[in-house]
C-alpha cells in the first residue's frame, strides 16, 4: 500500500496530462464534428464532397500516424507548414481525427430524423436553420448519446497514444515506474485510474440519457 501511495504522485501527474488531452479534444472536436456533419448533409455538393474525403482520410489512417505527421512532417509542408510543440500537435491531431468520427455520428443522427419533421417545420414557416436548431438537432442529441458515449470512452484510452511524442500521460508515467522498479503494480494502478475515468463518463452519459428519456419517439 505504501508503494502505491508513493507512486501516486507521478501517476496523478500523468492523469492530469491525459485529462487535458481528453477534455480539450472533446471540447473542440464535438463542435467541429457538428459543422462537418451539417456540411455533409447540406446541398452544397462541393462542401459535402470535401467533407467526405476528409472523413475518409481521417478514418482511413492511424491516429498515431496523423500525430507523427503533424509533429514531424507538417513543418516541411509548403504554405501551411508550421512547427508545433508536442502538446498542441497532439491536440490538433486528436481534434482533426475525432471530429471525423463525431461527424459520422452526427450525420447518422441527423439522417435518422423522419422527413415528416422537416415538412412539419417547413409548413409552419421555419427556415432550414431554425428547423435544424429547434427541431432536428434536439432530437438528434437523444439518439446519438449511446454512440457518443462509446466514442468518448474510446477517446480516454486513445490519449495514451501521445507517448509517441514523448509526453508523460498516465500510461507512459506508469511504464516509466514499471521499468524503474521492476514491478507491474503501476500498471494495475493505471488501469484503475482509466476505469475510474470511464466510469465517470458512463455515469455522465447515463444521466444524460435519463434526462432525455422524458419523451419517447
Amino acid at each position, binding site marked *: 500500500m505504501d508503494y502505491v501511495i508513493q507512486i501516486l504522485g507521478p501517476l496523478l501527474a500523468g492523469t492530469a496530462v491525459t485529462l487535458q488531452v481528453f477534455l480539450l479534444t472533446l471540447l473542440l472536436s464535438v463542435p467541429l464534428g457538428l459543422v462537418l456533419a451539417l456540411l455533409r448533409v447540406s446541398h452544397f455538393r462541393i462542401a459535402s464532397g470535401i467533407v467526405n474525403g476528409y472523413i475518409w482520410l481521417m478514418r482511413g489512417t492511424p491516429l498515431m500516424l496523423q500525430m507523427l505527421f503533424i509533429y514531424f512532417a507538417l513543418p516541411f509542408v509548403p504554405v501551411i507548414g508550421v512547427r508545433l510543440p508536442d502538446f498542441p500537435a497532439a491536440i490538433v491531431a486528436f481534434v482533426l481525427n475525432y471530429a471525423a468520427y463525431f461527424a459520422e455520428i452526427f450525420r447518422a443522427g441527423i439522417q435518422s430524423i*423522419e422527413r*415528416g*419533421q422537416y*415538412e*412539419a*417545420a*417547413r*409548413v*409552419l*414557416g*421555419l*427556415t432550414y436553420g*431554425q428547423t435544424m436548431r*429547434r*427541431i432536428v438537432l*434536439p*432530437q438528434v442529441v*437523444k439518439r446519438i448519446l449511446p454512440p457518443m458515449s462509446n466514442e468518448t470512452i474510446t477517446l480516454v484510452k486513445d490519449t495514451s497514444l501521445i507517448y509517441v511524442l514523448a509526453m508523460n500521460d498516465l500510461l507512459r508515467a506508469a511504464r516509466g515506474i514499471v521499468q524503474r522498479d521492476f514491478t507491474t503494480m503501476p500498471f494495475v494502478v493505471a488501469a484503475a485510474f482509466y476505469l475510474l475515468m470511464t466510469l465517470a463518463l458512463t455515469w455522465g452519459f447515463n444521466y444524460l440519457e435519463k434526462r432525455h428519456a*422524458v*419523451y*419517447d*419517439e
Partner: protein
Amino acid sequence: MPSTMNELSGAAPMIVARDIRKRFGVVEVLKGVSLDIDRGDVVAVIGPSGSGKSTFLRCLNRLESIDSGAVVIAGDTLVSTDAAGVCRYAPDTELRRICRKMGMVFQQFNLFPHLTVLQNIIEAPITVQGLAPATIIPKAEELLRKVGLLDKRDSYPSRLSGGQKQRVAIARALAMEPDIMLFDEPTSALDPELTGEVLRSMRQLAEEHMTMLVVTHEMAFAREVSTSVVFMDEGEIVEARPAGEMFASPEHPRTRAFLEHML
C-alpha cells in the same frame, strides 16, 4: 379549362391552381390539374390511391415543386410558368410568406416528439413570428380548449392517442393563423373509433368558415361537411361539383364506379 366553384362571388379565389403538371421520374402524377377555391370553401378531394390527390395538395405549399403550371394563393403568385414553358417560383422570403398563409395537417401527424403539446403549438409563433410566450400561450391554451385537449397541455406527444395527436396538430397549424388549412388524409392513420373526434374538430373549423382543402377517404365527411367535392383519378380532376350533387348524381362513370366502391 378552369373549374371554378363559385364563379359569381366577386372576391378573388383563395387558391388558384392552373394546369399543374408534375412527374416523378417517368411517371406523370399530375397531368394538368386546375382548381379554384374561394374563401370559406371546404373542398374534399377524393379518389383512389395513387390518383395524385396528396401530391396535388403538397404542390400548393411547395412540399413538392411542380414542373409547370401556376399556383396563386390569396392573390400572391407562388409559382407561374411563362410562355416559353419555364416554371418559376417566387423568391425564397416571398415563398415562405405565401406558404405561411396555409396551415397543413399530415396523415402521420408529424408532431415534434421532444416538445410538449403546448410547446408544439407555440414553437412556430415564437420562432417564426417572434411572438412573446406571454402573448401566444393564452392563445395556444384557447386552441387546445377548442380541440378538447387543454388537460394534455404538458404531455409529450408519445402519451397521446392518434386522435389526440391529430387534434394537437390541428391546433398547432391554427396557432399560425392561416387563411387556408390543408389536410392530407388526416384520419387515414387512425383507428376507426378515433376518426370521429378529429372530424369533429374539422367540422367545427368548417363552421367557422375556414377555407379548407381536405384529401380524404372519409366519404361521410366529404358529403356532410364539404361545400364541394373533387374527384381525382390518374393525375387529373375527373369531376368537381358541389358535394350534394356529386354524391346524388355523379356524372362521370369513373366517379360513379369509385363512389359505389367506397359507399
